[in-house]
């Protein structure tokens, strides 16, 4: 499917929002969460640029699965590091091991369901963390209501991730055409929710 001018505008808006977030950072964040957020928004920024330049065909590259894992993993690491101090080390180890296992199972020529199961497990934990932590924190008064928007962004990234993962696994929920049609707006809404959530936190 060819990328349309409207897709390009939506992706450019995503790129600009991600660039803004990288430049302003997250208020009061320590070095490690700042690096984690920079990686997450940096991957979003570069991914948006590559989609604008190379078109949707870039999604067929096998490296997309690995790179797209970086966004939820680094974002959730930043959130856990900032808001769940007791679990910092455990989660950091989970992120590193999870990423390495995904990398390994994607690079090795495995014919069983292990790569998909690993991906679903690691993605699932990271996605739920991004979705639940900000919402629970804002509902319980440990953060402002605006912070819940990060959770909304987490839900949107989850939807996008599931759609793309199932498409790549050959069992699509929606047709490729529909997924590619909604992807730019999904990416923009997700980035806008993250940026607004961090600004209002």
């Amino acid at each position, binding site marked *: 499917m060819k990328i349309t001018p409207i897709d390009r505008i939506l992706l450019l808006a995503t790129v600009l929002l991600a660039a803004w977030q990288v*430049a302003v*950072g997250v208020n009061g964040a320590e070095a490690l969460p700042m690096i984690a957020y920079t990686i997450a928004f*940096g991957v979003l920024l*570069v991914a948006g640029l*590559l989609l604008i330049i190379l078109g949707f065909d870039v999604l067929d590259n096998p490296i997309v699965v690995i790179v797209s894992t970086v966004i939820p993993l680094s974002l959730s690491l930043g959130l856990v590091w900032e808001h769940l101090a007791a679990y910092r080390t455990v989660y950091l180890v989970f992120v590193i091991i999870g990423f390495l296992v995904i990398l390994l199972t994607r690079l090795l020529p495995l014919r069983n369901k292990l790569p998909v199961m690993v991906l679903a497990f690691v993605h699932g934990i990271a996605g739920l963390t991004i979705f639940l932590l900000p919402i629970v924190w804002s509902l319980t008064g440990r953060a402002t209501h605006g912070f819940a928007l990060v959770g909304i962004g987490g839900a949107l990234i989850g939807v996008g991730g599931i759609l793309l993962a199932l498409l790549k696994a050959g069992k699509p929920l929606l047709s490729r055409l529909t997924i590619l049609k909604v992807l730019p707006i999904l990416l923009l809404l997700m980035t806008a929710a993250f940026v607004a959530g961090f600004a209002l936190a």
Partner: protein
Amino acid sequence: MHNLQSAIRNLQSKIRLYWPLIKSLQTGLLLSTGLSGYMSARCPVMHWYDFLGLAVSLFLAIAGSTIINMWYDRDIDASMKRTCNRPLASGQVSPAEALRLGLVLLVLGVGMAVVMSPLYGLVVFAGLFLDVVIYTLWLKRRTCWSIVWGGISGGMPILAGRVFGLGHVDGIGILLALAVLFWIPTHILTFSMRYHEDYQAAKIPTFPSIYGFLATRTTIAISSVLAALSIAIAGVLIGMEWGFVRLLAVLSAGLLLLAVASVFRPTERVNFGLFKYASFYMLSAMILLSI
């Protein structure tokens, strides 16, 4: 009244013909590096007339040298599919007319630069000399290594802008010029791979035709790393805000990713994607250096 209208129409049609002669995107990108070089000097007081003078003099000088290059290379342009419709190659503008225009713009640009600041004028002149005489007239048709000289001349606008802002040549200015020099292969070599057959037909020695595609891609990857490093070091030395350094690091990572992909998974799409990304990268880096 009728004479005035016809004169305006005549002028409009001339501008339409002349505009492609200056390669507006390339001139615009080089001009943006010059303006960034000036802004990077962080002048305590920035006078709008200095800024405007810099923009006009650099634009005239770069546009003038581009037209003279195109005048000299009109035979090459005529033999290549990509460029055979350019105004000079297709005969819409006569060679004498283009040469006159190029020389007028060039003399105006350099003259204005010398009046504004002799040292700035000297750097602008050095850039033109390297570009027109060393690169185009002497080396372009002889060796593929001519791009090194093209790269050095490409680094002159940013150095000139910084020299105009500071009043002297400094290490950061040279580092910024080096960044452009290292960025040039990413820009030019991806282009020479895409239009490899055109360049061969025109008998222009290029890296892909002399050393092969793999060596060219490796050169692009290495020069991308060096360009990103030079810009990052210059940015830190200038005192760029950490947020902008982070953004520059992210954009550099994208450039490196594409450069590495073009070495290990080379396709026409990745190659041209790298070409486009490199232009975007340089423009973004220049904006970040200016803020």
